[in-house]
């Protein structure tokens, strides 16, 4: 239940982020025992690169504390959608914070919003949408893969979101979002291989007072077909973009500075001049606080296509 609102101490059943380093963190469930493969109930011990953690020991601890591991230490953090996205079990390719932030902004998701999402996938985006629309809005999320829909439903419940979300197993391209949702949504988000097939359903599901639409596609052809369909149905403000986040690597570098002036002095003078010491070490190191890009950057995540359904477009 540690996703619903800010809290100070770890309670039993919380998802907790065990933070070891920028590149190493884990989402663990704060329960004292687990059931192993043989069906036996055993003590919950979590293994990390810095040794093991008896999970029972962190229950009751204040979030943000340092906890000891058998060969080091870690910090326990309350999960946020950002941390969850970096630690969640991948059931599909997921969308990350920079794209998600733009999606929420463009879809104008805020408390009270009714949002439709398809597909649910690993629930990375769903967690952000739920944070943004709770406690007065509702998320309707669809996946065509039954196991994934079930897993997501279970996860949302354990994370404290049960009342704010409905999870559907449904092929929305062929079947739409169900007639109950006609004219119900403020925003529709699609992450589908053929988004154009679901655009007419999105059109139906949006409120008569209008709403916002987004499709996320890895390939440009998907965006092209999606936009054709959007245009046909009277959507406007159609806009496609890419967002790429660049991380800066900050470090203090010692860089060599060489002296070449001494070469202008005749060599024979070298040992007799007062500068002799200096001429023997013409290379010194100077410290710089530097910023650089990592060797590899994300070059592409997907194309985001946004559109507005204007108010009072007849849907018959």
């Amino acid at each position, binding site marked *: 239940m540690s996703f619903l609102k*800010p809290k100070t101490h770890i309670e039993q059943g919380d998802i907790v982020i065990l933070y070891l380093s920028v590149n190493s963190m884990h989402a663990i469930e704060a329960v004292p025992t687990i059931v192993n493969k043989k069906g036996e109930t055993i003590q919950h011990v979590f293994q990390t690169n810095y040794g093991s953690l008896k999970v029972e020991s962190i229950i009751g601890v*204040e979030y*943000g504390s340092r906890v000891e591991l058998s060969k080091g230490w870690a910090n326990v953090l309350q999960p946020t959608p950002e941390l969850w996205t970096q630690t969640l079990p991948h059931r599909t390719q997921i969308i990350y914070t920079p794209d998600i*932030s733009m999606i929420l902004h463009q879809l104008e998701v805020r408390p009270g919003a009714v949002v439709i999402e398809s597909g649910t996938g690993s629930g990375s985006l769903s967690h952000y949408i739920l944070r943004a629309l709770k406690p007065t809005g509702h998320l309707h999320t669809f996946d065509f893969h039954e196991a994934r829909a079930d897993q997501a439903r279970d996860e949302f419940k354990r994370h404290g979101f049960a009342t704010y979300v409905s999870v559907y197993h449904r092929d929305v391209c062929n079947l739409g979002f169900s007639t109950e949702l006609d004219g119900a949504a403020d925003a529709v988000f699609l992450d589908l291989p053929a988004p154009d097939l679901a655009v007419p359903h999105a059109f139906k599901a949006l409120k*008569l007072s209008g709403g916002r639409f987004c499709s996320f596609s890895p390939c440009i052809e998907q965006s092209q077909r999606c936009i054709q369909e959007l245009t046909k149905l009277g959507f406007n403000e159609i806009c496609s*973009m890419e967002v*790429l986040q660049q991380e800066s690597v900050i470090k203090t570098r010692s860089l060599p500075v060489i002296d070449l002036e001494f070469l202008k002095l005749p060599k024979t003078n070298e040992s007799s001049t007062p500068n002799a010491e200096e001429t023997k070490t013409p290379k010194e190191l100077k410290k710089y606080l530097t910023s650089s890009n990592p060797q590899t950057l994300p070059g592409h995540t997907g194309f985001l296509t946004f559109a507005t359904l204007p108010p009072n477009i007849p849907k018959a």
Partner: protein
Amino acid sequence: MSTDVTTPNIQLGDYIVIQRQKYTKLQKFGSLDATSTLGKETLELKSLLDQPYGSTFKMCVKETKSGKRGAQRHHTLELCSDTELRSTREVLGISSSGADNRDICDNGEAQALKSSDIEQLREACNESSKIIEKLVENSKTFHTRTEYSQEKYLLKKEKKYFEFVQIRQPTIRLMVDIFYRQDAEKIMGIRVDTLSQIISYSGVCGFGNYLLYESGTNGLLPAAMMNSIGADTEGTLVHMHPGNVPQKQALLALKLPLEQQQRCVSVNLYSVLREFYQGETTSVSPAEPSAVEAEETLPETPTEEQPEAVEPSTKKPKLDEAPPRGNNKGPLRWQLENKRATTLMHEKFDSLVVAAKEHPSSILQALLPLVRPSRPIVVFSTCKELLQETFMELKTSGKVTALHLTSNWLRTYQILPNRTHPEVNMSGNSGYLLTGFTLK
């Protein structure tokens, strides 16, 4: 076609977004005499009253004055039906286009109409489609241009002569576009992608108490955070600023319900920190920091906040109505706000956002102790060098973990059949974000 009941109507006192094609503008509809200027066109806003947001109006020329840089036109607005809105291209029904432009010689004589002819035409027929039709008829090269080139020509002309405006309700999305396009400096260069990430990384939502310091974004940052906190929720924002008066334009434009407005506590940074460290200081006026901070223009009576002083004709409910007693009698508004803020400061916050023109380092030193452990912090600056220093300081202090310094690369695309490509120009500066989580 019936108007949807949930669409609100345009009221006096509202901020409205006026849209003419891709151009958008934030405008206060302060009185029935209010006008708005779009380039050379002046619009009388009177007829907007009580019409639903999202409506489209036709600009009808009322008067033409010759100004220094061509004719200045005065228009009334007439509500129009959706069927009046057809694409110019459809109207003109252009079909025949040359395969390429090899035979076009650009000798400046392609248009047979003189500019005086066009000005006359414009007064005679108000419809852009008719004007453009005439221009196309009198163009010697239009029909030999490529389709791409024709489209470009039409778009250019349509932009110039387009006679419809749409009135929309301000949202964060519309406002950040307007502000960034008009003068990015006025919102400290916070681009849309960066704003969206400040909201994500800060975790601001319907639950929790949030702390923001910003040195001037026309109210955009507090508005965006209040928007995410939402109506009828438990969230609260303490909004610290360096001036005597908080910049609130974007916040006022959102027209939030009163209960939500009241959960945004705007206080002067210096004043509230002094009160926090030294207890109640009712005798100290907030004029003190004004000696320090010269960016805000000082109102005539410096002892009282006057957020509406800039546009005194507003009729919306005054925020000042909250204090129980009248002016200059009981505690002043800023004193009450300081008190509310210091109470929240003692309880500590669930997140900290700093968007400073100043070096963020000393601000973080002062505000970090007010944040609970395991809470996100987000620091924005247009100057990477400052964040690099801050990054190193925080890293060394051990008080914040999961530190990241990021910026963004945002590129929009033209997606049209056979003409798909990224837009030729892109914005170069997203600004920089430093993010992390506090530790115990």
